[in-house]
């Protein structure tokens, strides 16, 4: 059933592929005229047609759950390539599957950091539960299991993804419960990301199309709530400590390099106070926090501009009296130019 089979001899030599040469399964949904229309839409996005090949292979997977022989042929025909040329590309990339994928693709990160934090134990447990190894599908066709290389979510480790949506900070028990729910037909909400669909739906998105029937569902996917603790860890700590970036110069101040004419043509509103900043300031005011008010009162509007200009090392004292004990609610905006750099926290410029 593999579109791109290896041979027994090849597998013995390389250890890379021993998939048998089997015809496509009978119950595979066909590629239709609509598939071709969409393939041509993809081609039209690019100045050179062949750039469409990767999205087109995602499109094939969105119909059939893997890169089928029929899908390879379709890409070859539409792009004027040989099937061998298309196959050479499809076999290079991990996300193009060579055998039909289960309804959901469960990927467990077993790269170093996730592995030491429990990722390998999770992989072993799921493998035992499902009775499959890496890149195999459970007998009921519900789950294809794979171990994944680093998924760029190390601050949420160890991570498991289902159809590439993230389930963060997993352990053996939570991951087993997740997979059990998937096998029952449930779709637990990812920690971050949109409500779960399935492998084919996500493949459609990767081809550059919406996987949702209507705009409301698409918007809901974009705006889906999630838990973003590690992403916001530094921002929240900065708010807690009353630390911020040096202020950009306001419009009332002379430009730093006034001799350069470009400075004089800047629109006057570009560094002004904005509704967002005002809202953030209002949130701070609403926090009713005397320590914060004291900190804000002591910070002169010009202080930020002095940041990094050789202030004495004593300026690094973190127990300074200007330290607010508590700041705005976590997650509140504190951008550059909010003018709340607290005295005693502006560091000296490091000697280059």
């Amino acid at each position, binding site marked *: 059933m593999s579109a791109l089979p290896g041979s027994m001899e090849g597998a013995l030599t390389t250890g890379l592929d021993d998939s048998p040469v089997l015809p496509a399964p009978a119950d595979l949904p066909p590629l239709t005229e609509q598939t071709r229309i969409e393939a041509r839409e993809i081609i039209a996005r690019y100045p050179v047609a062949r750039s469409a090949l990767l999205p087109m292979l995602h499109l094939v997977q969105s119909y059939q759950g893997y890169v089928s022989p029929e899908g390879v042929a379709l890409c070859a025909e539409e792009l004027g390539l040989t099937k061998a040329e298309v196959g050479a590309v499809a076999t290079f990339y991990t996300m193009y599957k060579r055998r039909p994928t289960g309804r959901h693709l469960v990927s467990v990160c077993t790269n170093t950091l996730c592995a030491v934090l429990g990722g390998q134990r999770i992989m072993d447990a799921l493998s035992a539960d499902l009775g499959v190894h890496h890149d195999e599908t459970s007998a009921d066709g519900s789950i294809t299991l794979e171990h994944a290389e680093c998924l*760029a979510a190390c601050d949420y480790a160890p991570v498991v993804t289902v159809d590439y949506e993230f389930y963060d900070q997993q352990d053996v028990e939570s991951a087993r419960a997740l997979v059990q729910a998937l096998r029952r037909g449930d779709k637990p909400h990812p920690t971050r990301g949109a409500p779960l669909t399935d492998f084919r739906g996500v493949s459609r998105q990767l081809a550059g199309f919406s996987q949702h029937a209507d705009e409301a569902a698409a918007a809901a996917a974009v705006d889906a709530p999630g838990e973003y603790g590690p992403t916001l860890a*530094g921002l929240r700590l900065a708010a807690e400590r009353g630390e911020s970036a040096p202020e950009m110069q306001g419009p009332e101040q002379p430009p730093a390099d006034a001799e350069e004419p470009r400075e004089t043509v800047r629109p006057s509103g570009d560094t002004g106070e904005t509704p967002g900043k005002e809202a953030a300031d209002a949130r701070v005011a609403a926090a009713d926090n005397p320590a914060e008010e004291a900190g804000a009162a002591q910070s002169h509007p010009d202080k930020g501009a002095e940041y990094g200009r050789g202030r004495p090392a004593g300026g690094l004292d973190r127990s300074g009296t200007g330290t607010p004990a508590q700041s705005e609610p976590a997650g509140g905006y504190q951008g550059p130019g909010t003018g709340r750099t607290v005295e005693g926290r502006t560091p000296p410029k490091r000697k*280059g």
Partner: protein
Amino acid sequence: MPLTPVLTSRWGADQSWRLSTYESMDGYAALRTALSMSPDELVTSVKDSGLRGRGGAGFPTGMKWSFIPQPKPGETPTGPAALPKYLVVNADEGEPGTCKDLPLMMADPHSLIEGVIISAYAIRSHLAVIYVRGEAVHAHRRLMNAVGEAYAAGYLGRDILGSGYDLELIVHAGAGAYICGEETALLDSLEGYRGQPRLKPPFPAVAGLYGAPTVINNVETLASVPFVVRGGAEWFKAFGPEKSPGPKIYSLSGRVVRPGQYEAPMGTTMRELLEMAGGVRPGHELKFWTPGGSSTPYFTPEHLDVPLDFDSVAAAGSMLGTTALMVFDETDSIVEATLRFTQFYAHESCGKCTPCREGTYWLVQILQRLVDGQGTAQDLDLLVDTCDNILGRSFCALGDGATSCISSSLKYFKDDYVALLPPEEQARLGRSLRLEPVGAAS
């Protein structure tokens, strides 16, 4: 150093990924400024800011832009100058430990798009492509939505904000290949081929995408550009050391109390960052860490005070890379960690260059038998020898990166390797090892 949220400053806002939020927080203000400047002025401004590439190599961004051949006034352009120019965004984040670009695109995709428009304008490009890692469907979704919003608002497409400048922006999903984070492999992949690196020269600035002049920049680099434009070069240079300035997103992960993204000036030390992240988990101590992902040589507790900027980290024997700070404690085996990383490189080697393709395969075999307690005294020499035959002998940096964790772990933690050898092999070590046993010399 204090925390200095700049790139991350909008991340906590309600629906920070939406255009309306972005516009209410100075969003696209820098674009208006930029479009009132000439492209050459923008290049100069970014050069003056000292901004260096955030994808790992640290190449000066303005200088990279200035390498694009541009038609000379009054002359009919010939050669590369006559071809279209392209801007390609490397959003194929996948270096183990690295997790800064995906959160940026999740939380604040418009900051990247604004940076793309300004940068494309600066190099006189009318087509930009964001190559997003395929597995990053969550970031891809937000980015697709944001690009749609930007087109609808007139920030992309024809005659942007009435300036007469046109730019089309394509979001292109990859398909799971670490090598495509290498810029020339990325170009091959974007052209619809297997992602394999190209021989340089010619460099992409002369012959890149479709053989035309191309700038390839990292997500964090481009997201920094609007702040350079809005704050000015002097403001930007106030962060950190003179030769590698700017705010930087440091990603802490592993055995720390509060893993996450911490934005601070370039040159912040690991000691300071660890303190921000609540330190190593209680009851344990730091054993080893990476300053910038798995391709950068390990650091140890003795490097806690190295300023984490490009030059200081290089002087201390590693690389700043992507400031992916993976933290390991005394319960973690350095040899097993190194084996895992090496398995990763063996899996991700594209196969083009023999030293990398074969060498990473054999490194895994050697490390595996060491971890299994079946190593020999010669294996440590063999590791060094194999690394010597990979380093500098392949097209791209993947092979070089594969040797970093092995060479540096042998340098700092040879005792840990020796401890895994059977007793009779340990006894033979003194005579066979090229390297002096740790603690025996000086």
